[in-house]
């Protein structure tokens, strides 16, 4: 890239005049550019290493409040003289404040520009008439401000001293002044010609065809640009979309349901004995008010009661205790989306088979949030209800799911859940850490679960896989709280995994 082609008009102008160390202001005067344009051009030239910039502190003389006022209206003594130009006048006829009046009288008297008469009135002298149209040093100085204090000429210094003696006419402001000097690299470019270049292309240039007359300015393609701001999905929901797609692709129907569940659906229908520790207050959130839910149809409740007590007609011994409907009423926050699976099976009959369902939903446990636990967590749930499905098919679905999540090596360990048999804990091999990671549970629903709900004993393959741990792994985050948080800055983290 030819560096000269990247130079805009302003940059060129600056380089053309920059034959010695100059302040931005001096450059502005020489190039007839505005100071802000020069500053910007210098910044670009600096980026291209064509100039070296230095900042120096300097004292700048500026107009103060009264200075601004008088530069428009004229100094009070001038206003005074103009007022009495055509004849003598009393003080109340002169358009000045009391203070200004007094100052003016003092100044004009000293210059012998007025006579003071009795009773009090003022008359202009001949000398006074000459002064009306003559610009004083102070006036000239005030008009030319701002100026740098250190480079005042003697007559300017004189004017400055006079003005500072008066109230709020001028002030000193500390200012940083920008100085620039050409670098060796710039000197090697040789003589720079001024040339009109097209910067940002305009609609007018396109329609008129005027772009044909000029060269396009080259851009530095490696220059940094400000971050784009976009709306984005939260990374958790992006991951959920990815996971949902896997099951939808395999023909699964999505299940939905409430987050509060009667204990009946969260526990009892899933053959979880009423004294099981998960039903204790340490583990599960229960609702204070309304404490109780309604139970489903009597026939179903009776069926569940029987499998718990003696197995009913399922061929099971049951848990051998007295089942209490009051405990089944208790409203709780669902501890697993398996409660949805139970409800779904309960809504089907033989003619609806075969059927496949899934859900990705939130669940709750009585905990506070820390790096590795949360009171709310997601579960990826699935069931396959079909005559003839087997344990090998269960492993098949789990294996393909984990493969699509990017884990090639999966193993299946025996597990334990009250509602499945075989129970499986799938584990994936972490290729970098070289360890087996447990990601959830699975199994075939027990006849004690399926028969009361569906009316017949059909194998139901079921799984409930944790979700957050896999996402943390993929995003290389070590803390759940970072996953849930939303940081509204620049580019947010996204889910970039694709099925391989």
């Amino acid at each position: 890239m030819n560096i000269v082609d990247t130079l805009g008009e302003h940059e060129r102008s600056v380089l053309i005049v920059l034959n010695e160390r100059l302040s931005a202001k001096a450059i502005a005067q020489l190039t007839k550019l505005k100071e802000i344009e020069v500053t910007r051009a210098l910044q670009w030239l600096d980026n291209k290493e064509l100039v070296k910039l230095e900042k120096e502190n300097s004292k700048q003389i500026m107009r103060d409040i009264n200075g601004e006022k008088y530069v428009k209206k004229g100094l009070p003594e001038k206003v005074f003289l103009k007022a009495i130009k055509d004849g003598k006048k009393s003080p109340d006829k002169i358009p000045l404040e009391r203070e200004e009046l007094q100052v003016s009288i003092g100044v004009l008297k000293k210059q012998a520009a007025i006579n003071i008469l009795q009773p009090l009135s003022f008359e202009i002298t001949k000398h006074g008439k000459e002064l009306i149209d003559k610009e004083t040093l102070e006036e000239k100085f005030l008009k030319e401000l701002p100026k740098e204090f250190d480079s005042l000429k003697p007559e300017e210094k004189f004017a400055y001293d006079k003005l500072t003696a008066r109230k709020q006419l001028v002030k000193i402001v500390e200012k940083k002044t920008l100085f620039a000097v050409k670098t060796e690299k710039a000197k090697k470019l040789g003589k720079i010609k001024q040339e009109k270049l097209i910067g940002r292309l305009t609609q007018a240039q396109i329609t008129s065809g005027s772009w044909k007359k000029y060269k396009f300015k080259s851009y530095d393609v490696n220059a940094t640009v400000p971050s784009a701001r976009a709306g984005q999905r939260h990374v958790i929901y992006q991951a959920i979309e990815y996971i949902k797609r896997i099951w939808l692709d395999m023909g699964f129907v999505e299940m939905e349901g409430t987050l509060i569940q009667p204990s009946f659906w969260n526990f009892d229908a899933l053959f979880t004995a009423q004294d099981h520790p998960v039903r204790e207050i340490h583990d599960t959130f229960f609702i204070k008010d309304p404490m109780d839910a309604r139970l489903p149809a009597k026939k179903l409740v009776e069926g569940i009661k029987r499998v718990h007590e003696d197995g009913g007609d399922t061929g099971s011994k049951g848990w051998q205790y007295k089942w209490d409907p009051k405990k089944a009423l208790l409203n709780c926050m669902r501890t697993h989306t398996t409660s949805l699976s139970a409800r779904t099976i309960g809504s089907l009959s033989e003619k609806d088979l075969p059927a496949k369902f899934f859900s990705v939903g939130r669940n709750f446990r009585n905990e506070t949030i820390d790096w590795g636990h949360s009171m709310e967590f997601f579960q990826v749930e699935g069931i396959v209800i079909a005559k003839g499905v087997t344990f090998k098919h269960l492993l098949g679905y789990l294996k393909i799911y984990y493969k699509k999540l990017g884990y090639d090596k999966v193993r299946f360990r025996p597990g334990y859940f009250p509602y499945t048999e075989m129970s499986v804990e799938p584990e994936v091999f972490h290729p970098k850490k070289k360890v087996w990671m447990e990601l959830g549970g699975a199994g075939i629903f027990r006849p004690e679960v399926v028969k009361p709900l569906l009316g017949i004993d059909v194998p139901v393959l079921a799984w409930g896989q944790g979700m957050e741990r896999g996402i943390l792994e993929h995003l290389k985050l070590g803390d759940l709280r970072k996953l849930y948080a939303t940081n509204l800055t620049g580019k947010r983290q996204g889910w970039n995994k694709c099925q391989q």
Partner: protein
Amino acid sequence: MPTINLNYKTVKKALGNLSDDELKKEMAMFGTDLETLDKSGITVEVFANRPDMLSEFGFVRALQAFLNIKPGLRQYNIKPSGKKVIIKPSVKEVRPYTACAIVKNLKLDDEKIEQLIQLQEKLHLTFCRNRKKGAIGIYPSDKLEYPIEFFADAPKNVKFVPLGETREMNGLQILSRHKTGREFGHMLEGNSKFPFFKDSKGEVLSMPPIINSEFTGKISSSTTEVFIECSGFDLRFLKTLLNIVICDLAELGGEIFSMELVYPDKKLITPDLTPQEMKLDEVYVEELLGEKVNIKKALGKMGHDYSKGIVKSPPYRVDILHPIDIVEEIAIGHGYDNFKPVIPNISTIAKESYVSQVKRKIVEILIGLKLDEVFTFNVTNNRVQNTMLGYEEKIVEFSNSKSGDLSGLRRSMIPGLLEVLQKNANNEYPQKIFDMGTTFTKDKDQETGVLETDTLGVLLSGKDEDFTKSKQILEYLIEILGKSFKLKQRNFTEFIEGRAAEIIIDGKVAGKIGEIHPEVLQNFKLEMPCSAFELAFLD
């Protein structure tokens, strides 16, 4: 899940000196979760359905079968002891049952005593549900004079020195002064009589389920013979519990002796170690597993015997309820990793839920409008949901939360969004965010008494993000969703008066919109103007 500690050397020796890696793999494929394994010891997690594995003896027994070192059902002999336990009618109201046995010829050392204590503690905690369902007492037999008596009496009347103490206490004093008494006292509190075991000399053995006597209830390395009682409310459960304990002791070389239990209305002999029998249909096994496996061999590895369609299982197994449980034993014995995963050929038509589809539409629209989706929680508290927004009403609350900050469920999406902004107060503006989730309100017509509504919350923050900006988004959204809405001016405490409205769709209130009140902004420590709306998007 309970974890237990095992001795590294003992376990390695008993399991044929496998390498650590082989041992780890075998344990995993047997279904126990290994926490640590090195020379200093082994810690494993035992599933709740296997209380018989809560000691080294039971654990090693199971693994020895699984590794084919000693496969098949293990039988233990019982000889009659000729000793009796007399159960008085007085226990009927407070603790009606006990099951007992004697084990002789034990060779105990400190390590084995530690395993025995671990077994007792873990059984109490898990299988006995923290002593609620039953409690185990083990006593040195040489200190006792038989017959033993199980009786109940007013707690003031019975005194003994509880374990770990030097002074005699009566039943009430134990409940108030002894550490274990304070921990488990609630199980006896309120009863006019407490249950006790005593021997024929009148020496008190224990006050179940709380504490043994220091004198008669302490096992030492010189103990060779023990009396074991399990007491509680369900005789069937207690007999199983007793079987677990004595079969573990039998693994230590102990010999089991039965006792005669003289109940007021019947006589019983315990223990009963008859194997459990279950009929098994081999077709059922093959149908579920998806292939034919060697059933006898697989069951042998799990400690069962199989012959001609009948499975015999150990009397200490509590998890065989249905033939399906035997099928799982076969699958584990065969090895889960020996089953080849297969996808079945089942054709079904996929369908995404209606809620998900509508949500996706909304997300597409809002992302297009450059809003950021954020993540908020359902679980929150009254301060954030109500007080900080100027409401006095209450959210749907939990009865048992461990934390005041997590006391119930949100009724509005807006406070959670304000919390997100609070955490981003120092970032670039405007900040335009949304989330879709569930809001909770009481409603008698619902199954649970709570109506759960799918709700969208939108919150805009920045110097120009006023009512107009929120209304623009609402208008755009509703139009694309193919509906129409009306706004009906109404004041809400979280919004500035006169700059808020109800959103009405199809004649029903579907949400609210407004500019957030500066007082609310201050409550959330926000400095930028905000406007927001909330919409029940399915109605």
